[in-house]
């Protein structure tokens, strides 16, 4: 349905291709350089993704447009049929039309024999602003092929706004006694573990390895996503809960307990001896999350008699209560996740009988409630520190949702059987 409606815009592609050729040799900009687009401060730059030729063209255009839409930093300008016809009548590059549509830039992606050719036009200066080629041998419509396009969208967002997008990321979650991964746009949901009792997945900083705990047998496992090989890092009696990998990729911090409460431990990712970090004195200490510099850990502890959020140094010292202590029947705060910016911690708190997602500012401890519809739990930051995914039952079934914390806009990420414990990846390398 999406591709048939996009087919109407092909005339614009032909128009733009005719202007792309003479401009192609003019400029080549290296990765990460920002294009000086002209658009109103405080608004999002309008970007027209021009129709793409070839049998996969509609998919290419739809994927990149949707990445812009989901990224919340760029306003994708969708050309309707009439506009496309009008544009196609023009005998010269139709800069006035693009300007009238509010486009600060136009993007032309052309499938080639060994990948994609990208051209970006600056509408205000009527110049080619960026030319780049992306090599891939991935089969069209495969996950790797889609990942190349997500990478293009991320590059483009960075060149337009100075902030790299998060389209080429994946989100891990638990569903039906397996760990799954889904692309940031909700496509390609795939189980990555066998059926068992896995729970609480987390990423290593490279995005190639994940750690998760298992309930029965109780332990922590590490899985190489590229080979599919997993190994048991630590196991034994009692419970092993909520492993996270340190930002330097060297250690795994997890919760473990047998008969005297549950405490946080650290163990080298490569294996070795575990060392206890927290001194919970019989209380529960779970759900650790590292600060981006790896020097502090935020975690949930029941040491005050009910679950609250605490921080400590990575060696277990200098413990500090983070959330305002609220002695009451419903005081229950959990699932902290330290933001990539380092400034905020997202967590869940019981409010009016339901869990809601909140952030707390580490500097002034100001609180901000992010959700109010249904039960919302287990927030996990995107690597841009702006978007969050969390579990919500607002449709009646626990699904993952994505929230833009700047605009409050949200979208449903997963569909189908209920899910939980999401973990948003770092920005992923090209495959």
């Amino acid at each position, binding site marked *: 349905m999406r591709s048939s409606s996009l087919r109407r815009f092909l005339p614009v592609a032909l128009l733009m291709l005719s202007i792309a050729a003479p401009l192609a040799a003019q400029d080549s900009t290296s990765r990460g350089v920002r294009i000086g687009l002209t658009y109103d401060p405080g608004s999002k730059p309008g970007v027209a993704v021009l129709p793409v030729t070839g049998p996969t063209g509609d998919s290419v255009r739809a994927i990149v447009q949707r990445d812009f839409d989901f990224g919340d930093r760029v306003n994708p300008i969708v050309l309707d049929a009439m506009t496309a016809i009008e544009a196609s009548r023009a005998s010269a590059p139709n800069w006035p039309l693009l300007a009238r549509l509010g486009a600060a830039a136009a993007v032309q992606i052309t499938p080639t024999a060994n990948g994609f050719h990208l051209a970006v036009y600056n509408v205000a200066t009527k110049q080619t602003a960026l030319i780049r080629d992306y090599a891939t041998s991935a089969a069209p419509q495969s996950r790797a092929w889609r990942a190349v396009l997500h990478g293009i969208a991320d590059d483009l967002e960075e060149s337009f706004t100075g902030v790299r997008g998060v389209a080429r990321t994946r989100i891990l979650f638990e569903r039906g006694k397996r760990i799954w991964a889904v692309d940031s746009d909700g496509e390609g949901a795939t189980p990555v573990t066998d059926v068992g009792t896995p729970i609480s997945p987390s990423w290593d900083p490279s995005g190639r390895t994940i750690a998760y705990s298992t309930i029965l047998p109780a332990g922590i496992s590490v899985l190489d996503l590229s080979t599919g090989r997993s190994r048991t890092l630590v196991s034994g009696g*009692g419970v092993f809960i909520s492993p996270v990998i340190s930002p330097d990729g060297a250690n795994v911090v997890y919760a473990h307990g047998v008969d005297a409460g549950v405490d946080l431990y650290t163990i080298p990712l490569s294996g070795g001896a575990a060392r206890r970090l927290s001194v919970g004195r019989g209380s529960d*200490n779970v759900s650790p999350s590292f600060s981006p510099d790896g020097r502090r850990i935020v975690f949930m502890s029941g040491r005050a008699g009910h679950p609250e959020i605490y921080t400590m140094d990575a060696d277990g010292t200098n413990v500090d209560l983070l959330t305002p202590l609220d002695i009451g029947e419903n005081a229950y705060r959990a699932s902290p996740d330290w933001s990539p910016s380092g400034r905020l911690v997202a967590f869940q708190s019981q409010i009016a009988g339901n869990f809601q997602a909140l952030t707390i500012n580490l500097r002034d401890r100001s609180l901000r409630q992010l959700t109010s519809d249904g039960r919302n739990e287990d927030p996990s930051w995107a690597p841009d520190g702006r978007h969050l995914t969390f579990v919500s039952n607002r449709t009646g079934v626990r699904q993952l949702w994505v929230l833009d914390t700047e605009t409050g806009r949200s979208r449903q990420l997963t569909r189908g059987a209920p899910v939980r414990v999401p973990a948003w990846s770092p920005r992923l390398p090209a495959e």
Partner: protein
Amino acid sequence: MIRRTAVLSLALLSVAALDGCRRKVVSAPTPVATSTNADSLAALRARQRADSIAAAERAAREAAAASDRRSAGEAAAILAQKIYFDYDRDNLRDDARATLDAKVPILIANPSVTLAITGHTDERGTAEYNLALGQRRAAQVKRYLTSKGIEDARISTQSMGDSQPAVQGTDESAYQQNRRAEFQAAGANTLVAPRS
């Protein structure tokens, strides 16, 4: 849990089977009388008398075995009986203590029996905290039983958190049935009931 119950049932079935074998050995075939004289009549009466004594003894043995079986079954049921907790709590309520107190003499009478305690929670709260809470509940139960003289090494603990609800549902009645500790006994073919 299910597997353990099956093991106990199998053990009981094998006891019943042995009983059956023994019965065959005891009830020797009665020879057919070929002639009627005083001696053979007396012998027949003696045999009949012996047979009726054997039948009575057999009935008594069977009744005793049935009683033992019933006692063993009751003991297994008492060991398996679940206990329940309040929301977000691991302390033992009076009803839980009473249930645990009933297990103690059975564990003492069956020193080879080990007990695996599994802590469970209702679905509220986070999966991670609930795993910890389930472990805390199992550990609390273990502490209580060891305080009553059961050896530490005979009791193991684990947590399933909220991953294995006993009943589905989102009301307090369902939650209450899910906030529980379950017990799996192992290590004896058949349980001996405590002599009171």
